[in-house]
């Protein structure tokens, strides 16, 4: 009480005078200098405004649209959950859930392939390469910069009906007719996705491996652990955060990919992005397409949260184990 009193008097003392004489502008200026956050928000406001218009408004409008109904060329704006009911109706319209499920499986397969292929490379970069590390890093990041469309196009050229494999095999007289199973199916999409995203997974894994304290590995050796056990008990658990980050970095965008299935997927390799597009286009049911967009994002978010939750106790356990 006694410590607070003078403070309060101090503030209350001059305030009647200043409140009367201080203009609004001066008070605003005071707030400006006193509150760091206010200046921060003023600085970021052009960016924030642009993003609210170009990102916030589109997402909000999709949410709103998903509760409406399409009536030929107009929208019935009475809020309804009918679109979502239609999407999850396994009996009458299984195509939506089935496509979503297939997209998740294909993205999951591509992600697994990418991470399994990338891990040894990241390990190689972090532990084996001593000289010219920069050259290796640049070599691995260059494809990251080259056109995504061209990387997918390259696979169309390789796998296509008149593509490299088929025409070369025919040219050699090994087959009469082009092999049709090469392109326009789920496997083609998965291979193409795995290749197109390969470079994205190496860097996060590499960074987490590079951060590992080398003395931990020496300690493991001193304690009589072999290289395999050392890897499994020290290196792998400690690189798990980077590996999970890499997996998410590949999985999240591939689920909703539109270009790859359109180019190499055919009708059996269609993914949820293609269905959303056709709902907005030919099928002329934008509200249902909006609902499918929201559902897809919701499912992916849930999966990501579940994954993060599932590996969290493991991770801290491993760190504890190592610290002991």
């Amino acid at each position: 009480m006694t410590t607070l009193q003078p403070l309060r008097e101090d503030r209350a003392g001059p305030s009647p005078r200043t409140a009367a004489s201080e203009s609004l502008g001066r008070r605003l200026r005071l707030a400006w200098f006193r509150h760091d956050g206010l200046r921060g928000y003023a600085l970021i406001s052009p960016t924030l405004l642009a993003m609210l218009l170009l990102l916030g408004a589109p997402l909000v409008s999709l949410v709103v649209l998903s509760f409406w109904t399409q009536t030929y060329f107009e929208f019935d704006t009475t809020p309804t959950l009918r679109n979502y009911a239609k999407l999850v109706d396994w009996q009458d319209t299984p195509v939506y859930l089935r496509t979503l499920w297939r997209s998740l499986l294909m993205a999951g397969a591509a992600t697994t392939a990418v991470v399994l292929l990338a891990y040894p490379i990241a390990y190689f970069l972090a532990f084996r390469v001593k000289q010219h590390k920069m050259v290796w890093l640049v070599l691995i990041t260059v494809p990251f910069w080259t056109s995504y469309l061209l990387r997918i196009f390259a696979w169309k050229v390789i796998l296509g009906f008149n593509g490299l494999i088929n025409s070369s095999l025919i040219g050699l007289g090994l087959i009469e007719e082009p092999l049709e199973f090469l392109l326009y199916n789920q496997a083609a999409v998965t291979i193409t996705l795995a290749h197109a995203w390969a470079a994205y997974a190496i860097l996060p894994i590499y960074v987490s491996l590079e951060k590992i304290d080398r003395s931990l590995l020496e300690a493991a050796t001193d304690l009589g652990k072999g290289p395999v056990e050392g890897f499994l008990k020290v290196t792998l658990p400690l690189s798990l955060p980077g590996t999970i980050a890499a997996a998410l970095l590949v999985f999240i965008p591939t689920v909703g990919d539109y270009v790859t299935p359109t180019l190499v997927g055919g009708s059996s390799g269609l993914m949820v992005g293609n269905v959303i597009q056709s709902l907005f286009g030919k099928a002329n049911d934008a509200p249902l397409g909006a609902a499918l967009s929201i559902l897809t994002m919701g499912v992916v978010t849930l999966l990501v949260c579940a994954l993060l939750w599932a590996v969290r106790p493991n991770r801290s356990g491993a760190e504890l184990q190592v610290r002991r």
Partner: protein
Amino acid sequence: MIGERRFGGLGVYALAYLVFLYGPVLLLPLFSFNDSIYITFPLKGFTLAWYRQMAENTQLVLALQASLKVAVAVAVVSTVLGLIAAKAVTRYRMPGKGPLLGFLMLPLVVPSIVLALGLLVVLRLALGFELSLLTVAAGHVMLCVPLAMLVMISRLEGFDRNLEEAAADLGLNPWQTFWRVTFPLSWPGIMASLLLCFSASFDEYVIAAFLTGNETTLPVFIFSQLRFPQKLPGVLALGSCILIGSILLVTLAERLRRKGLQPQTAVAP
């Protein structure tokens, strides 16, 4: 042989991985010089016909011009927006910074088809905009702002904040501090962000396809050509040119980045 002895089995795997990474893409330049409209081994003869055909294609040249216009504008606008946003989040204690950053980074995780259709709904149905290269550029700015922010945040966090405070202590106002201290120090980051946003916009297909009007961008043009087998060699030639262009850009970006690192280490040891 030497690689094998030095790196062991992992080294061999790494080389194989590089072949897997580069092999498919390098087929494009290889077959762009092949004297046949069929893409098949063995190679026929050497020709520059596809490149000549490409240069004479007015539609292609128009699409290239459109793409360049959009990409340059997008790179500049996104980098400016990214720079001020990065400065705000790295230099001020802002309440609600976490959710704010989460919102601004959304384009990295939301499928671009969803973003494209959402933008289409807002621009077309709600605001009644005519679709044009301007709407494409607006969509690309939205995609590129998080990229520019990530580059600029790492750059601004990388240099000593005391330099800015010292400038302020020496009596410079915030504007002068920005131009004389922050801007020169973040220049390599700005260049990297410009190049990254340029290539992201130049390469983007989905948003461009949905938001474009009469004029198309290069990826949309390439996509439309893929349907015709006889146009394939022309696309190969075009793809090879883009490949070389982007490799030149990466080399340039890397050089600038390294150049920028040297004075910084001299200033802040």
